């Protein structure tokens, strides 16, 4: 009799917990989505509606043409091209250099491996923002002002450490026996790395790829400082020029922002299930 009672009580407790869990979960989701929903709503309001009091919750006229107008008003295609070329090149450069480095660190137990994490932290401390003046002078010195190359090199350099860190812990977690089996089968070290190890380390590669891509895609200060010609400005800088004008044209600003945000959110959402395992590997090792 008592056991049955206890069981019943326990089950009810769990359901109550589940309901409050679900509600709080959804509330959290809504809070973090809120500013972007407001962005979306504002982006389809007409200019007069934006400047009306009281503010409307939803647009009275859904002015989707804002998206076409901004596309014509700003060299948006140009900004978008810069963002894509720069972010993609920087990311590929990072992976090209980080994979061999991480492989070495992950496979060889050399002295000071634990100090490696600290080194990563130090390079993290050298964030581009805090070094903006040094970078600016460096870019002038190498005659890279107003080039894509400047951004590509800076973004690649500042994302290298993190990628090496994530990747090396992935490589370290792959048993050496798998690799040895490949060697016995006659594969060279490089072949074993390319055909056997990299496919297994794919979650790590994807995590490193996305992290670098997103940080390059969203970077603002360096691009603002060293790119003065619109032809070489990425989206973040190009769109902010709308704020500098006499009156902020919120509807266009947000339409443009969403064009920039949506692709990276989709990218990020695609790797969501690897995100936790990628970070786990990084934080355990």
């Amino acid at each position, binding site marked *: 009799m008592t056991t049955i009672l206890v069981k019943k009580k326990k089950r009810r407790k769990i359901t109550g917990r589940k309901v409050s869990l679900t509600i709080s979960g959804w509330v959290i989701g809504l809070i973090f*989505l809120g500013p972007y929903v407001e962005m979306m709503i504002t982006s389809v309001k007409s200019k007069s509606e934006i400047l009306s009091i009281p503010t409307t919750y939803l647009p009275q006229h859904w002015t989707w043409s804002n998206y076409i107008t901004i596309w014509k008003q700003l060299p948006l295609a140009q900004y978008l091209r810069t963002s894509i070329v720069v972010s993609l090149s920087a990311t590929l450069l990072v992976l090209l250099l980080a994979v061999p480095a991480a492989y070495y660190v992950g496979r060889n137990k050399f002295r000071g491996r634990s100090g490696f994490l600290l080194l990563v*932290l130090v390079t993290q401390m050298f964030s581009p923002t805090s070094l903006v003046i040094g970078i600016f002078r460096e870019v002038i010195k190498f005659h890279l002002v107003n080039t894509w190359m400047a951004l590509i090199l800076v973004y690649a350099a500042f994302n290298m450490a993190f990628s090496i860190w994530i990747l090396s812990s992935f490589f370290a977690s792959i048993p050496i026996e798998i690799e040895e089996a490949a060697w016995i089968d006659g594969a060279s070290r490089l072949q074993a790395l390319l055909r056997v190890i990299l496919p297994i380390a794919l979650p790590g590669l994807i995590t490193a790829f996305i992290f670098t891509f997103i940080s390059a895609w969203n970077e603002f200060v360096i691009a603002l400082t060293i790119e003065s010609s619109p032809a070489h400005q990425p989206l973040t800088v190009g769109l902010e020029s709308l*704020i500098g004008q006499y009156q902020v044209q919120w509807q266009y600003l947000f339409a443009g922002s969403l064009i920039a945000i949506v692709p990276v959110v989709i990218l990020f959402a695609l790797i969501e299930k690897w995100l936790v395992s990628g970070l786990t590997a990084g934080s355990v090792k």
Partner: protein
Amino acid sequence: MVLYPAYEMIRTSFMNIDETGTSHGFTGLSNYRTLIHNPNLISVLERTVIWTITVVAVTVLISLPIAQILHAKFPGRRLVRYALIVPWAASVVMTSTSWLWILNGYYGILNRILLGLGLIQDQIQFLGSQIQSFAWLIVVAVFVSVPFTTYVILAGLTTIGEDILEASTVDGASGWQRYKNIIFPLLRPALLIGMVINLINVFNSFPIIWVMTTGGPGYSTDTTTTLAYKISFRNADMGQSAAMATINFGIILIFILFFLKVSRWREST
């Protein structure tokens, strides 16, 4: 590529550089001297410390329960996790712009909601006074920092095996006891990494302040990072700004070392 700008920056901090960027040789400590005589420096330094500590502390305090909730299973968890990713993936500049609009004193949606709920009678200029602006800057900084921190803690939670939790349940530990005595200590490595990365990011954070207040009115919401930028690109004094940035770097270094010492980094790794 990373170390050279650092070297160049420190070198610049000892040089006399005019508005056009031409160098007039070394001037010793004169840039640092000018900087120290800047009447705003002390308040900016104080604000930077308050800013960094408050944002990181609040972020962690909020992220811990959120991670716990998102670790448990409930209908729609996947969607909520996606929602949490958005502020992380979206550019901080754009997120700050959205907040700037939400907080707008005349047309902002927050005023509308509060009026609609009858909580306020008149519109509030959220970014009107220094204290309020600064508080909102902190809110936005926490908003953009929580997703990453939550995910780091989530990653930490997944490393704690179900068997450990089950064993403690069998032992009869209550929910809170279990959290305090078993889960929290096991989360330490993840939490430390999350906090250190946050410390660095928040300290160096530029876009939020720049977009929402440009450090104003005056210098009243500047941190050392935005002040350094202002000095170099508004006052066109590269040398002095480099001095500020060098001091800045020293501060973050002290911050991190202090933090690692307090948290006994070595013992946990």
